[in-house]
């Protein structure tokens, strides 16, 4: 706990510099650089190491990274899909590497379609994931921390949103708004997903806010926002990461499904769901030689989703206070031999509180 109180302690102590007892402490104040270094350790290096130490998370992170790279630089490197860019309906590798995954019934390169569909999918996932995270964390933290009437009102809204069946609502909203922009689509697809996160975060915050260091901060007269940001948020961050990943899966499932059904409008968008739809209606299920047309988007979606679930399962270990503490302390002693390691370890143990 020492490190935490030290950290939260520095700010107010600057403010109240008149007492002798306080000045003694202010000598140990961290420089700006040290502070950033410590933040980096805690938010990037320690989680990174934990992710890397768990095989599932490592494989999952690798798969996700692959898709991110594919989405970021793939479209620039690989040709765009166009009608009649190649012979129609040829099998994968039939003409060497010209059409690695073959072409569809309009002569479009299938790999090109998959590659060029990735950026909009990533945008959709990022928009949806961010929306879910921001909404869930805000509503959950405010409800859990403030309690009383605010909590009741927010909890009621959360429960209502959670109860509305998501897919039918998304179908209706998609029909109403006809989103073309992937970011808007991402928001619509997660319109009710944030509620689950908000509810979980609320219960986490409820237990954290009973801890002594939060009471200490309150007693010192820190403002509510700064208590929330400094004492509470750090503890729920690992959880938020997992939820981001789950929201991403939800976006993929829903978007592909709705593009497949033709519920989401598409004129120019290439999308894995649209590919499945076109493959199914183009007879890929009936003609054995067209199977690759359907297999390619199915495999693309399954692999990404598998990567995300492996990653989220692996990072589940970040919940485990002991694992976190162990890693936080190694990071601490590696980069900061002044003994902050012990402090970080204690924080870690407190941080994993369920």
């Amino acid at each position, binding site marked *: 706990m020492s490190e935490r109180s030290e950290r939260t302690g520095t700010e107010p102590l600057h403010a109240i510099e008149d007492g002798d007892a306080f000045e003694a402490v202010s000598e140990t104040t961290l420089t700006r650089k040290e502070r950033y270094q410590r933040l980096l350790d805690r938010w990037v290096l320690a989680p990174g190491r934990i992710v890397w130490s768990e095989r599932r998370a490592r494989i999952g992170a690798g798969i996700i990274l692959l898709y991110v790279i594919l989405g970021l630089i793939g479209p620039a490197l690989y040709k765009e899909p166009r009608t009649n860019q190649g012979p129609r309906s040829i099998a994968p590798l039939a003409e060497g590497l010209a059409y690695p995954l073959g072409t569809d019934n309009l002569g479009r390169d299938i790999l090109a379609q998959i590659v060029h569909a990735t950026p909009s999918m990533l945008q959709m996932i990022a928009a949806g994931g961010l929306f879910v995270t921001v909404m869930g964390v805000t509503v959950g933290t405010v409800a859990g921390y403030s309690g009383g009437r605010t909590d009741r009102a927010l909890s*009621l809204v959360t*429960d*209502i949103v959670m*109860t*509305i*069946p*998501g*897919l*039918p*609502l998304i*179908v*209706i*909203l998609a*029909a*109403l708004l*006809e989103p073309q922009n992937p970011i808007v689509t991402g928001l619509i697809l997660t319109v009710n997903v944030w509620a689950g996160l908000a509810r979980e975060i609320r219960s986490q915050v409820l237990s954290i806010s009973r801890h002594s260091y939060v009471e200490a901060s309150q007693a010192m007269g820190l403002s509510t926002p700064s208590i929330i940001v400094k004492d509470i948020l750090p503890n729920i961050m690992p959880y938020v990461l997992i939820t981001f990943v789950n929201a991403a*899966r939800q976006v*993929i*499932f829903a978007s*592909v*499904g*709705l593009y*497949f*059904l*033709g*519920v989401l409008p598409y004129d120019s968008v290439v999308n894995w769901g649209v590919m*499945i739809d076109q493959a*199914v209606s183009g007879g890929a*299920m*009936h003609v*054995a030689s067209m199977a690759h047309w*359907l297999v390619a988007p*199915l495999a693309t*979606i*399954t692999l990404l*989703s*598998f990567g*995300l*679930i*492996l990653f989220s*399962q692996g990072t589940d270990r970040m919940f485990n206070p002991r694992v976190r503490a162990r890693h936080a302390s190694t990071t601490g002693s590696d980069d900061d031999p002044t003994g902050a390691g012990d402090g970080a370890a204690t924080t870690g143990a407190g941080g994993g509180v369920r």
Partner: protein
Amino acid sequence: MQRYYVERTLQAIVTVVSVMSLAFFLLRLMPGNPADAYRAELIQNNPQMTQAEIDHRVERKLNVIPDAPLHEQYVNYVTGLLQGDLGESINEGVPVAEIIAEALPWTIFTMATALLLSFAIGVSLGAMMAYKEGSYFDNGFSVGSILFNSIPNYIVGIVLIWFLGYRFELFPTGGRYSTDMEPTVALLEPLQTLAFLGDAVWHAALLIASYTVVAAGGWALRMRGNSIQILGEDYLRVARLRGLSERRIATRYVGRNAVLPLYTALLIAIGFALGGSVILEQVFTYPGVGYYMIEGLEARDYPLMMGVFLVMTVAVVLGVYIADLTYGIIDPRAQTRGGEH
């Protein structure tokens, strides 16, 4: 405890009312305002009709009185819904409630079967995995469960229908039952009834399978987690020291305590399975409620869409409500905590 029940009931009511209000405004916001569109159509096709008659027809169709003040329209709409009047399908010309009443049993049949199957399979698998934690059996099935749980169920559906439906022609690729089959459910005709039921199951089998395979993985992982947690509890050691049989420990001590938390999840899943049927029923061209929702969407048949949406929402609200109220009876430990939810 009393207060909890009252609050929970109020909450369910507030939810239903909010969703009805949401539906009302969505219906009014729908592109091409269905009321105006329908009205224009009526005026064009029936020039002799009076204004009042047209308004009346529109009202019957959409539960919305054209030109009335918003609050009056709203009251009218909600009273209609509460009396089971979901409006009239624009395309089929029959009340939406009729279409849903006809389709709902099929969706309930498939989804309930799928849910119970996946629950039974998942729970037994998860318990076995927990007992053999760390073994090849556990690792193999864990990876399998994660893999299956990571595939959207409609993709499993597409693959199943592709191979078992089209390629090997073992299963039908759509519909509720064969066209030459007379739907008979009667005690006096056991043979026909059995044949019909068998045919219906055969038609629903792939749909049920694609939901089950995916969901069972999820249940198995959750059950495994719960069981492992309980296996480490002290009372289990005490039970062993008392010399209770391993079988009794497995069923009474571990199984029961690990399954109980899943009860709430199961009831909630019932509601969500209804919502999830939207894509699956489309893949299998199985005319359940989800199928009609997309039909309604494609035909811009807003009353039909909204009707399905409302029915599904009420189902979820009921499921969650029953789960919350009965959990205390099933698991007495929850009763002391009940008020805190």
